């Protein structure tokens, strides 16, 4: 998911306050920024929302890679709008995180020096135009699985950010699928690109949900706090069940020979991704980790003079205004 393996923080608060807090959550109330909350709740949310925000920002890069090569003016405009939406999602999410007492600059620095992570999926390269289809269809499709339930999360600002984000994400997924349809119905070369994109993005998309967490204590705490709404396995199953018929409609083959419908459970049986690859990507050894972080660091470092210049100008204007009063 956009926030993977966020372990919940231990909390050492007054048991009575904790019980009252839990009662509010159980009653479906939203927690707002100025209200009391356990330290563990606050810290876990900062990590989760921060990681989600970083994923949106780093996630601009693999798709930005194709904006200048989009095949038509309309495709270029749609892709630009989509990547712009992602920057906007990053902005809402950083704002939501700020209500918990951490600034956007602090979070950014933690991303840039590697203290905070972003989703593993954005460390994979986008090699053909079909990858723009696959990213929208599979990656945004997987993200939606998690984000739709998060609209009901207990923390007010996060929940409201999710409502806005979900509206745009479903448009993203549809445009991705539309690209795949065009490719799958296109020339032989286009069909080949579409199948190749599915081959490369299938398992990394399954990894987005994170390893099985059904026995994880951290997940149980996050679920109790309604920061996490479903287990990783539940979401992954739902994603596979939704995506397989879509692949069939496109005439593409999911790269999993073990994939079959299981009548008993009412869902597909499917192969797990290679979790050792996942942990390597999380550690920084994915195909594009180095480039992605280098690109973000370069944007930040090259932009320092711009941020300083605009701040200095704003300060001069404030001073001039004060002097005039």
């Amino acid at each position: 998911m956009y926030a993977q393996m966020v372990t919940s923080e231990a909390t050492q608060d007054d048991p009575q306050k904790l019980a009252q807090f839990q009662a509010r959550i159980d009653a479906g109330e939203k927690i707002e920024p100025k209200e009391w909350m356990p330290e563990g709740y606050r810290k876990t949310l900062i990590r989760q929302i921060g990681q989600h925000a970083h994923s949106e920002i780093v996630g601009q890069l693999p798709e930005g890679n194709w904006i200048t090569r989009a095949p038509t003016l309309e495709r270029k405009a749609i892709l630009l709008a989509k990547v712009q939406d992602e920057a906007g999602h990053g902005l809402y999410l950083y704002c939501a995180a700020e209500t918990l007492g951490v600034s956007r600059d602090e979070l950014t620095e933690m991303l840039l020096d590697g203290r905070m992570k972003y989703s593993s999926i954005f460390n994979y390269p986008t090699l053909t135009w079909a990858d723009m289809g696959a990213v929208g269809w599979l990656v945004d499709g997987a993200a939606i699985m998690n984000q739709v339930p998060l609209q009901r999360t207990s923390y007010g600002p996060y929940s409201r950010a999710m409502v806005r984000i979900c509206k745009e994400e479903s448009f993203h997924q549809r445009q991705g699928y539309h690209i795949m349809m065009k490719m799958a119905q296109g020339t032989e070369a286009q069909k080949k690109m579409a199948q190749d994109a599915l081959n490369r993005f299938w398992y990394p998309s399954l990894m987005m949900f994170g390893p099985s967490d059904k026995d994880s204590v951290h997940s149980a705490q996050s679920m109790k706090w309604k920061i996490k709404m479903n287990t990783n396995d539940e979401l992954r199953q739902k994603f596979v069940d939704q995506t397989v018929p879509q692949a069939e409609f496109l005439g593409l083959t999911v790269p999993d020979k073990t994939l079959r419908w299981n009548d008993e459970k009412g869902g597909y049986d499917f192969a797990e991704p290679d979790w050792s690859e996942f942990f390597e990507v999380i550690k920084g050894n994915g195909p594009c980790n180095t480039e992605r972080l280098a690109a973000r660091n370069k944007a930040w470092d090259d932009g320092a003079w711009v941020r300083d210049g605009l701040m200095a100008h704003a300060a001069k204007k404030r001073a001039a205004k004060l002097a005039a009063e």
Partner: protein
Amino acid sequence: MTDQTALFEYLLRLGDNTLVLGHRVSEWCGHAPVLEEDIALANTALDLIGQTQMWLGLAGEVEGAGRSADDLAMLRDVWDFRNLLLVEQPNGDFGQTLMRQCLFDAFHFELLTGLTHASDDRIAAIAAKALKEVTYHLDRSSETVIGLGDGTEESHRRMQAALDLLWPYVGEMFTPDAVDDAMHAAGIAPDLIAMRARYDARLKTILSEATLTKPDSSYAQSGGKTGFRHTEHLGHMLTQMQWLQRAYPGATW
């Protein structure tokens, strides 16, 4: 030159300016100095690409040879492009990008204002729609040029360098040729000489607030809008922009 030929050429100029600049600005996506700027740059690029679809769409219609806006964008070579040299200049640093934007926006604003009165309703309608967007582009680029010009010592130095670098490309915008004259005579295009006076007045205010100095030269590079001699930069842009259409001819996307 017949009126139809001049009109086609003129529409290519309008559409190629927005196409080439939109493409350049879109190169920033994901790499801007701050998130708000990333969003604003993408927004500007999107507006310009949208305007391109309208201008080149109309150009194709006027030409009557069955070419769509995409055909014109993706399947012409450098010598057939009619954009100003200014807009094909590389992005450079953020200051250079915003200086290029401001120098173009101030021209674009005056041009579109004039075109809203065009005797051709189709052109007037596109201009009216585009003008709303470009009014915002100009506000933003001029404010940023002012902010960075009058910011720190370093930002001032970089903005002055950007202005010095791009200044030789300003003149081409206002130098009328046979196409401009024919369009002006047909009641479509505004008078470029009168536009220059308004442009200079606006620029003077912006540069003065930005504490920047207008270069003491009126030398103007030319050859973009006639297609006679583009800079070396355009060909590289086209190899990237047109690659898929060239590599897989006839495919639909």
